[in-house]
């Protein structure tokens, strides 16, 4: 890649190391759920910058619109009403790709170069290499990638990798009117979160915390939550997510093991032939049958 900011750390279905000499700063987007007002400006900015326009849906009786992520809606505000300590809380979460350090989508993807993890931490789908199998959907612990009806390719938030590559913040962060979405180096975002958490705890949110789940090696999209002990309150944000053990088995050690086993059976057969020789009809038996035939002819 021409730009250092687009240096690749991991590439799907590739077994050799990517270029790794240069050191790139890890970036992160921090979504402070506690200051989000649910205006959906981020959704609009995402559509505009990425040139995706979803079909106009219908109202499902909630504020959510659209109601779910799709190949054309890479980010969606999710709204949940809960009662905490005798008062109503409206928990709003901007859902989308979490840009895991250990991405389940990339682990599962069989197409070389269809999923890329940049050295800065962004996980990006390169649709020109995507074969449309949907293994990324199977691998993702956050239920994020979506297959498009038009072209059967998988799409999701790119963290505006094209903007980040040239030193810009993602469109959603740029547009957020309350500053609930911030963007910078991962270290810097952790510091911002830490300051905010001091504030939140002082205001009585004792369980406030940063959502940067270690099960997926941390994420490059992090949330500040008032109830970090119960992330599932935020429209089922997974508590302690990790790549499913079934995906790890399937796309982990089963791969080389099965490949070696098959090679073993094939080579074993070859060497069996070489050492034991072919299994032919014995000369004795052939002579015996020939004699039988001759006798029958004589009769």
């Amino acid at each position, binding site marked *: 890649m021409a730009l250092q900011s687009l240096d690749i750390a991991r590439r799907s279905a590739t077994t050799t190391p990517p270029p790794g000499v240069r050191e790139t700063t890890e970036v992160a987007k921090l979504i402070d759920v506690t200051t989000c007002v649910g205006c959906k400006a981020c959704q609009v900015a995402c559509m505009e910058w990425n040139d995706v326009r979803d079909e106009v849906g219908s109202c499902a009786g909630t504020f959510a619109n659209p109601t779910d992520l799709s190949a054309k809606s890479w980010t969606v505000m999710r709204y949940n009403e809960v009662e905490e300590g005798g008062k109503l809380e409206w928990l709003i979460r901007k859902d989308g790709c979490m840009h895991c350090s250990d991405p389940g989508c990339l682990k599962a993807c069989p197409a070389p170069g269809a999923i890329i993890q940049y050295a800065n931490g962004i996980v990006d789908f390169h649709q020109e290499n995507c074969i449309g*199998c949907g293994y990324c959907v199977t691998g993702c612990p956050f239920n994020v990638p979506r297959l498009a009806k038009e072209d059967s390719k998988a799409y999701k938030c790119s963290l505006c990798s094209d903007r980040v590559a040239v030193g810009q913040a993602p469109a959603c962060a740029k547009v957020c009117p309350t500053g609930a979405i911030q963007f910078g180096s991962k270290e810097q975002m952790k510091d911002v979160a830490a300051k905010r958490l001091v504030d939140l705890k002082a205001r009585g949110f004792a369980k406030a915390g940063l959502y940067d789940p270690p099960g997926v090696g941390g994420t490059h999209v992090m949330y500040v939550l008032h109830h970090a002990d119960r992330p599932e309150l935020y429209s089922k944000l997974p508590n302690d997510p990790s790549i499913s053990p*079934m995906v790890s088995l*399937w796309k982990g050690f089963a791969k080389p093991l099965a490949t070696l086993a098959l090679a073993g*059976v094939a080579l074993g*057969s070859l060497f069996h032939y070489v050492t*034991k020789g072919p299994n032919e*009809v014995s000369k004795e038996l052939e002579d015996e049958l020939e004699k039988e035939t001759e006798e029958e002819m004589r009769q």
Partner: protein
Amino acid sequence: MIRNPKDLQRYTASERANHWVVGICFILLGLSGLAFFHPAFFPLTQLFGGGVWARILHPFLGVLMALSFVAMFCRFKSLNAMTPADKEWLSRIGEMVDGDDHNLPEQGKYNGGQKMMFWALAVCVLLLAVSGVLMWRAYFNLPVDLVRFGSVIHAAAAAVMIALIFVHVYAAIWVKGTIRAMWYGTVTRGWAKQHHRGWYRQVTGK
């Protein structure tokens, strides 16, 4: 064409055609499926016109193989019922592997090993067909845990089936005079008497 009037008919033309429909599907499925399993095999997608075509074709070939396998299963299932003689044969399979099958118990049309192969393949095809449907995202969108489980089963059953087919093909190559049974349907009397004496006596009356 009859090569030798003394030869014995082992497979009818329709049995052979059925077998080869399954066989061709299996080869194409194996090549395309391995490509999705391990990156080392991804270049095999070029045989199908690229990764996208391999992904599109694989499940349809799978449906064709499953259906043609069911037809073959119905044809051969009663011939593959296990008998005590088969168990005895299997317990002494080492002698067969050694290439010395003269003292093994008399075998009918199929020996214990072939019968085991038949049932193991049937289980594999069943598992592959069911788990394959779970993974077929073009038409099915099922709960992700089910798809994950299906993916593990599909890969495991496929690896086992490929290994079994290696053994199946190798056994046919190793035991001389076998492959012609699947090309033109006949085997020599010597072949039948040595490897399947029970069947030989049954068809010749000797």
